């Protein structure tokens, strides 16, 4: 009986330790700047979309700071899969409140897939901007040169400098 109790207590603390290390894992990979989260394994475009390299494709979405600034996203309209897109140009439009703005794609290439769940419920971008709220999958055509123009997620000073500029613009 007493050995079973010791085993249970040991397992309990092992579990706690695992959770602790998992949490450290998660927060180790997340840069938090002034209330907004930036996973450090992503690249960030100054027009507010993030980029994740997945083999020969890239996944893109809207960053945490931008979704907070936009407010609850009500509508999202985007170009269709198969379209050729150019970095810095419009992927689509978003609407929040009664404001309509553009989604600027950070990478040139072929649009392979739009996230159907986000098209059905654009507020997923607000709820989970780096997970379920991803926006599009792209087959890039100029990744080597264009990735150099993006801010790497683990470059905290560069992220902070960029956000400082954005916040200053938005404080007015």
């Amino acid at each position, binding site marked *: 009986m007493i050995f079973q109790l010791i085993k249970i207590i040991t397992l309990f603390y092992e579990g706690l330790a695992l959770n602790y290390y998992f949490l450290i894992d998660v927060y180790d990979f997340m840069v938090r700047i002034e209330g907004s989260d930036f996973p450090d394994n992503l690249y960030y475009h100054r027009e507010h979309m993030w980029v994740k390299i997945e083999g020969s494709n890239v996944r893109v979405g809207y960053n945490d700071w931008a979704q907070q*600034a*936009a*407010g609850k996203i*009500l*509508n*999202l*309209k985007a170009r269709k899969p198969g379209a050729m897109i150019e970095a810095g140009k419009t992927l689509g*439009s978003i*609407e*929040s*409140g*009664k*404001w*309509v*703005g*553009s989604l600027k794609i950070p990478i040139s290439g072929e649009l392979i897939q739009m996230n*159907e769940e986000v*098209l*059905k*419920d*654009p507020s997923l971008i607000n709820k989970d901007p780096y997970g379920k709220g991803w926006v599009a999958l792209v087959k890039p055509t100029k990744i080597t040169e264009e990735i150099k123009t993006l801010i790497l997620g683990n470059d905290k000073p560069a992220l902070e400098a960029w956000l400082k500029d954005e916040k200053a*613009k*938005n*404080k*007015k």
Partner: protein
Amino acid sequence: MRKLRTRNRLGLNIEQWRLIDLGYADPYIAQTFYESIAETVENGLSPNTLILVIPSSAYACIGYHQDLEKEIDLQYTQKKKLPIIRRSQGGGATYLDSNQLFYQIISKQSQVIPTNIDKLFEKLLSVTVETYRSLGLSADFKPLNDVVVNNKKISGNGASTSESTTILVGNIILDLDYEQMARVLRVPDEKFRDKIAKSMIDWVTSLKRELNQVPSINYIKMKYLEQFQNILGIKLVKLEPLEAEWKIFKEKTLPRNLSHEWLYMEAPYSSKTGRSIKIAHEIKVSEVDYKTIKMLRIRAELKQNQILNIQIRGDFFANPKESIKNLEETLAGTIINELNIKKIINEFFNSHKVDIPGISNEDIVNAILKLVNT
């Protein structure tokens, strides 16, 4: 970018903006000419600009992301030869005519215009608020982007950003044709239309209704321009549009807005169910159908998720027969969430000994919950 600057009494530089007063203009000019101006502002050919204009005739107008065929009664608009124009700002379908004074604010890199959208609306709509106050109304700003008098909406506003240029469009409502506002909308049936019209009367107002008369348009413009310059701290210089802007309008803006492709543009996918018309800030009229053995149709006027009033109809009969009316009265004022609605419905059915063959308590609960997703 071409910038106009002047100095104030303290010798400090203040921005000068261009004022274009188009007077009474064709609906397409009234609703879309500002897009041509936005292009020249973006390209640095023109300074930041305020346009004042009144449509010379009526038209229906839909928001950028709306589905034309779902929103507008096309048979009616075709019969009445009413143009339909899709604007480049968001929001819902509306009917516009000569009883609104439009203000259209186009700016790029202005020190006086916030880039934060919430602050943009607050600052620019304070001009509208102060204009109404100077005309004798107790107007207030209601976030995100409404102006209200006695809690009734008295201005419609929307914004968009294109490249580096921000556009805010809105109106001073001189008078309203409530019947036409409801008539141009596509509705499931005429009772729904009546409900919308009634809701509009309850929640949307005008200068005429609040003051029993409409001040002269020149006086209203004068007040608006005074407030615009005071609040923004800028000087307006009245100028005519450039020839280049009219060229852009004729060759680009107008053809795009007349095109079938633009008007019938595919709307974003929507997972919303039923039919819902936004009346004012938090107010909407919604309808859902719920099919079980029988059919339930729930129609309600909602303030966010609160039921203001509700009608429960369908191909069923209830015993006692006045129980549905009593249930509707009981539900008025309720916040729609599963716990609340279940409790009310169950208690009502038990205490009033209600029997509706083919419809269970759960059916009514589920039908009402569907309203949230309209």
